[in-house]
């Protein structure tokens, strides 16, 4: 089974989703939870069978789809993607388990299962076209979740989300086609396989254009400033479960793709664009943190804080050294856990009060102490308190980028100040002071179903904050390979200098055998 575990992970939820149409409405929840749990257990199995010492791809599968164009169904997982896959299945599981009273719950669960297929597909696909297919397919369930279960402006928000990201990915598709064409010119055969592309050393001016094409697709997904405005609408209108999965997993597709595609394919262009991208990242960090501070709606605070944190992830990625990239991958996990938990927490109060305006709350710590405690822990994780999950990633990302630029890191470090400002003020507005509103006086504290979702996330936040090794080590090993690939491929003087040469890393045979 292990040799096909990735295919199982991708298609099991989809198949179960199709079967779901035959399940009757009452038992749908139980069905959904069991499917998601099996999927989660399978993803854990993947982790346990994963060899931490190997830095290249594992559990690879290959099946020709359209051989004449070099399109193959290639899957594989390494330290960079492994944990995002696990996180995707974790969030689907706790998302379904903690689903509140939802109209059409059956459709919701089926949609979530389809979404899970696309998420796992994106993070395991190693063929350009297969990657693209999953990447685009992931839009559909999300469109449906926002459009069918969202707030008053759901149609606007969902269409905006769909068209914006779709437009970006089309540019990326053009880039991919061109990449395959270049490969054809160089070798005389078509290929969309990522490892074939890795071996292609492109002249710098080609790299710049291709980098730009991929960049637009990824940047909108992340979302990077100034392409971020779909996100507040999507979060503002999406139901809790939609926001959780969007923030925790879907946004990571963009940052993951930077590491999987942009960096190793275009090392010279990555160095060339390092400063502009870093400047955008810093704008994301400071500007959106200030916008977050100006918000009146707590969900928007968390939404904008997501953009701000994604800025740190981008910065770490473009540090182009092992510390920075490992940190950014780690922060992807950290941000997923923390922002997912924060959106769940916002959902808790929204279910009770049907409002997200902070001015409606105040003094909640008196009435809902458990809720206040969990929110407090997650808030502290979000502002990067050491021994909680986000700190490790933030620290490494900034540390890594410091090797590239002192001033820019100093500016990016402002993240720890502005992040504390909007988070603490929001927390004070919601939880501290006297209870002023009559409606708040009889609120119930978090119930069991909510705890099922929140407690694991709290435990993970603390565990990985204190002992990040289980996931930092495999991430680090795989990142070393990426950095070494980049160093080897770099052609310009500047790139050779800025991308460190990692002694001792043996480039194992990463490229696929040319067997067709």
């Amino acid at each position, binding site marked *: 089974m292990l040799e096909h575990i990735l295919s199982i992970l991708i298609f099991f939820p989809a198949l179960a989703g199709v079967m779901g149409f035959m399940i009757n409405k009452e038992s749908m929840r139980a069905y959904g939870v069991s499917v998601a749990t099996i999927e989660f257990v399978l993803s854990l199995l993947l982790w346990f069978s994963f060899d931490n010492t190997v830095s290249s791809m594992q559990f690879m599968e290959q099946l020709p789809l359209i051989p004449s164009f070099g399109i193959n169904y290639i899957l594989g997982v390494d330290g960079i993607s492994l944990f995002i896959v696990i996180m995707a299945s974790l969030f689907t599981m706790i998302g379904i388990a903690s689903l509140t009273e939802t109209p059409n719950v059956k459709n919701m669960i089926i949609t979530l299962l389809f979404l899970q297929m696309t998420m796992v597909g994106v993070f395991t696909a190693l063929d350009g076209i297969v990657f693209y297919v999953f990447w685009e397919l992931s839009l559909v369930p999300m469109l449906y979740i926002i459009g069918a279960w969202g707030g008053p402006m759901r149609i606007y928000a969902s269409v*905006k989300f769909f*068209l*914006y990201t779709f437009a970006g990915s089309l540019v990326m598709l053009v880039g991919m086609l061109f990449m395959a064409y270049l490969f054809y010119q160089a070798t005389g055969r078509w290929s969309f396989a990522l490892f074939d592309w890795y071996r292609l050393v492109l002249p710098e001016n080609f790299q710049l254009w291709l980098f730009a094409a991929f960049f637009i697709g990824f940047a909108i997904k992340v979302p990077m*400033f*100034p*392409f*971020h*405005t*779909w996100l507040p609408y999507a979060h503002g209108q999406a139901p809790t479960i939609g926001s959780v999965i969007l923030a925790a997993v879907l946004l990571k597709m963009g940052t993951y793709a930077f590491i999987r595609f942009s960096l190793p394919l275009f090392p010279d262009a990555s160095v060339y664009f390092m400063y502009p991208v870093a400047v955008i990242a810093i704008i994301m960090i400071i*500007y959106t943190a*200030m*916008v977050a*501070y*100006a*918000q009146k709606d707590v969900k928007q605070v968390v939404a904008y804080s997501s953009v701000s944190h994604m800025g740190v992830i981008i910065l770490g990625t473009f540090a182009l*050294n*092992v*510390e920075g990239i*490992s*940190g950014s991958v780690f922060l992807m996990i950290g941000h997923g856990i923390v922002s997912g938990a924060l959106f769940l927490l916002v959902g808790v109060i929204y279910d009770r009060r049907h409002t997200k305006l902070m001015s409606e709350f105040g*003094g909640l*710590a*008196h009435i809902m*102490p458990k809720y206040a405690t969990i929110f407090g822990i997650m808030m*502290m994780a979000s502002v990067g*308190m*050491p*021994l909680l999950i986000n*700190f*490790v990633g933030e*620290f*490494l990302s*900034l*540390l*890594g980028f*410091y*090797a590239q630029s*002192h001033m820019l*890191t*100093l500016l990016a*470090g*402002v993240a*720890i*100040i502005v992040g*504390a*400002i909007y988070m*603490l*003020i929001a927390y*004070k507005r919601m*939880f*501290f*002071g006297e209870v002023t509103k009559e409606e708040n006086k009889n609120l119930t504290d978090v119930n069991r179903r909510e705890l099922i979702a929140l407690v694991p996330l709290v435990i993970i936040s603390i565990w990985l904050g204190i*002992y*990040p*090794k289980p996931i*930092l080590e495999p*991430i*680090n090993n795989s*990142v*070393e390979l990426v950095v070494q690939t980049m160093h080897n491929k770099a052609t310009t003087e500047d790139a050779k200098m800025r991308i460190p040469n990692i002694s001792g890393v043996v480039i194992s045979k990463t490229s696929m055998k040319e067997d067709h």
Partner: protein
Amino acid sequence: MEKYLYIALFAPLVSSMFSALFTNGAKKQFVGVVASLLIFSAFVSSSILLSNILNGGEVLHVEMMTWMKSGNLYIPFGFVVDQISVTMMMVVTLVSTIVHIYSIGYMDHDKGFNRFFAWLSAFVFSMMILVMSDNFAGLFIGWEGVGLCSWGLIGFWFHKNIATWAANEAFIMNRIADLGMLIGIFLVYWNTGSLQYHLAFPAMAHLDTSTLTMIGIFLFIGAMGKSAQFPLHTWLADAMEGPTPVSALIHAATMVTAGVYLVIRSNELYSLIPNVGLFIASLGAFVALFAASMALVNRDMKRVIAYSTLSQLGYMFAAAGLGAYWVALFHLMAHAFFKALLFLGAGNVMHAMHDELDPFKMGGLKKVMKGTWIMMTIASLALAGIFPFAGFFSKDTILEVAFSEHHMIIYGVLVFTAGLTAFYSFRLVALIFHGEERYKIFGIHPHEAYKFMLIAMSPLLILAMIAGIFQEPFFNMVEEILGAMEYHIHSHVTVWIMLVGTQLFVGLAILFAYKKYYSWGSVPDGSSAMENSFIYKLLYNQYYIPFAYKEYVMKPYNDISAIMWEIDKKVVDASVDGIANAFYLTGEKTRDMQSGNLSTMLKWMVTGLVGLLSLAAVFGIATRYSDEITTILSGLGV
């Protein structure tokens, strides 16, 4: 020995987690007792470690496990018990044991009793991490941890808006400094290749001065936040909104001295850059004077003591900056004893006075609170540096350092500040304990604190009196690691003149304070000439610095954030929608063409045909005469 290290480190954590179990329940006396016992066990373990060091035992260095490992970066949870950290451990565990016991009484009627002990013990744990870590990242864990606990404890009474505001202020202001610290850490890593003290410091000897200066400055910026040095000092006075035991432990004895600890710990670095050291010393002397001046007129008992803490931190930085690290550490220790005592005494007074803080509304309390009166008087004597109390030995050595290093301005400022210190301390004592019983106007019936609280305070009382005798053994202990030299002024006559002169000056300041406030009769209402003088107003409003921060930092930040949001909606998002709308509109406007009406369609067909034909003609002609066109264009200079 390792066993004791782990007990000292983790007993507070266990205590915190144990207390946290009962956070949501009703008050339970045993929570406080168990927490105090666990902290006491940490104290005992620290004492054993101290005696080990004193008896010439080896420096204990353990690595518990790896924390982060990526690329070349290796950060373990490593702990070191050397002469510096063991001193800090003793101070931290001793004061916190006392504060824990004291709090059982002080927080007696508070419904957050259990929660209080959870936070307080968590603070002790963070502080132990801070002082015991063997690397900068571990230090940073403790650094942020004490910040977090300080946030939780300042805002402990979270129903009070002013308390939570102060908590956030403290956290955010510390974060500003932490950025400096973080950058300092990055610099250390990329220049020395390690964050562990035993690797990083030796490697610094090979770096050039400008890099070292950068490292020194950025690390010191971190220290400025925690130790509330100008201009990041405003949070400390506002932090007095927290419960008084918190002020005694965190904002007097331990956390605020973390910055001093950092400089002492990095002595190998700062010894290489005397210019930065001089800057630190100058800033320290400035803060000593600056804070003392604000304490002169303040009408909030706790704030006066807070400013006095600030002022004493200035003394410590002055000593550390001048390279007298052991003197700074010694003053840190002595100060922890008498300042914690002073705060706890103030806590008793607050309890007696039903949380009244204005000393002008008290008076004559010595009749009802004899024990507290004696303790606060002795603590004030120690603070003023009167022989033979603790402050005399530690503070006088700092003065000697400044004198023997020939920094006469720093020396002068520090001596003058010593006089101010004596004045405001005894202004407070005189107003609270002597004179008419002004509290009667307000209908308050004061009472002495529980006996066990006074007993708990007594070790501090004893130490405030006798800590001077530890100077010699202390010096011998840290000499090796801090490369300490004794500061002796060669001429005995000079020494005696300095000693006696300072003592006289300070004594006169005390007498002056007593004379002025001993028999104070009325509560000032702001009408007297002094209260309307410019200097008084300036000092009373803390040089208008908090006002300036509010007006010129916080308000603009609010406004800019609001503007940013508007930009986000009206510029960034509007342009996205604009592009989308352009497509919609194009469709909207051109749909008339597809009306299905045959004659309209034919009309458009003809238009299209003509358009295409003319294009074809233009291109055809252009191709035919391309050479000529090129010539003409080049002739035009295109």
